């Protein structure tokens, strides 16, 4: 065996041990956290947030979401599928959790809440997600948001008043505060009947809901 073979071989073995150990221990530490999170039922105030579905629904799915977050956009199809598959059995509750790194996340939340004052929260919510790529990179989203609000038929004067008003802002602040006290640190974070769902893929949300329905 040449010296080079030995040196390269030793470096390779050390690297593999280091990386393998790193991934193993980090994931293990994480799965311990997961199991304790899954076991406990989070105390969520179900009177808050924007809802779709009946209050007496057997399964309540709470989503902490940010309208500017790409992963939340990616989760939309599965959330919509839940809405369509279980119209009576599942209540979907949307809670705001705009992340600081998304510069327009909070503005989008304010628009959505103000639209909610006119009963059009979900319409603007869907529109904002559909057009996320178009407004995320803009420096000023005001005109874009006003166009969207016209498309869903909002009264512009009332919208502007509500967007500037305190009720809308304090609602978002209380969503964020609730999320933080629950330990939400990323979006989207889902709770199914109070159980935090650790998603490997978005299908896991469907599975968690199906399990709760069987109980």
């Amino acid at each position, binding site marked *: 065996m040449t010296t080079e073979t030995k040196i390269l071989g030793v470096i390779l073995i050390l690297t593999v041990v280091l990386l393998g150990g790193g991934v193993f221990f980090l994931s293990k530490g994480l799965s311990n956290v997961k199991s304790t999170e899954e076991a406990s039922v989070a105390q969520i105030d179900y009177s808050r947030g924007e809802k779709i579905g009946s209050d007496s629904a057997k399964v309540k799915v709470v989503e902490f979401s940010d309208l500017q977050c790409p992963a939340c956009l990616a*989760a939309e199809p599965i959330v919509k599928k839940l809405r369509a598959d279980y119209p009576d059995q599942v209540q979907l509750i949307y809670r705001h959790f705009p992340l600081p790194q998304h510069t327009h996340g909070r503005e989008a939340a304010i628009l959505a809440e103000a639209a909610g004052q006119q009963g059009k929260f979900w319409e603007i919510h869907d529109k904002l997600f559909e057009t996320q790529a178009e407004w995320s990179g803009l420096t000023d989203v005001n005109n874009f948001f006003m166009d969207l609000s016209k498309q869903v038929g909002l009264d512009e004067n009332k919208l502007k008043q509500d967007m500037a008003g305190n009720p809308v802002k304090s609602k978002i602040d209380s969503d964020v505060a609730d999320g933080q006290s629950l330990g939400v640190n990323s979006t989207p974070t889902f709770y199914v009947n109070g159980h935090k769902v650790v998603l490997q893929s978005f299908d896991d949300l469907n599975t968690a809901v199906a399990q709760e329905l069987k109980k």
Partner: protein
Amino acid sequence: MISSNLSNRLIFIFSLLGLFVSSFLLYEYTITGPIVCPIGGGCDTVRSSVYSHILGIPVPILGIAFYLGMAVLSVVHSQKSVQKIIKKLQLLGAVAAVAFGVYLTFLEAFVIKAFCFWCVLSFIISVIILLAVVSARKEDYDNGN
């Protein structure tokens, strides 16, 4: 053009770099929070797309298998007796990896419409490995080996 020995060391070093990148991505696949994404911010979108797994296997595992294979080949390559077959395997592996990388980068650009920094970095590393393999072969060819 570079000598066969130098190119082999380059392949080894870049394979280790690739191993770090792929292992980091695999770790990020096991968590649900946002991925650390230095440029572009498309990592979450790419991870949550249907293309993040192939036949149920997370793509970073394929990356780890490739870089580990290439690193092992370059360790064995320093044994003179088996160099010919090793060189063929290196070329085969690198071409396959770059072709797969082209496919994944195409998906990112035109289907997912978001770029994942770590995936692009891994693609660049695989291209460098292929260049090192090809340039060593050219050197051998020019020397009449």
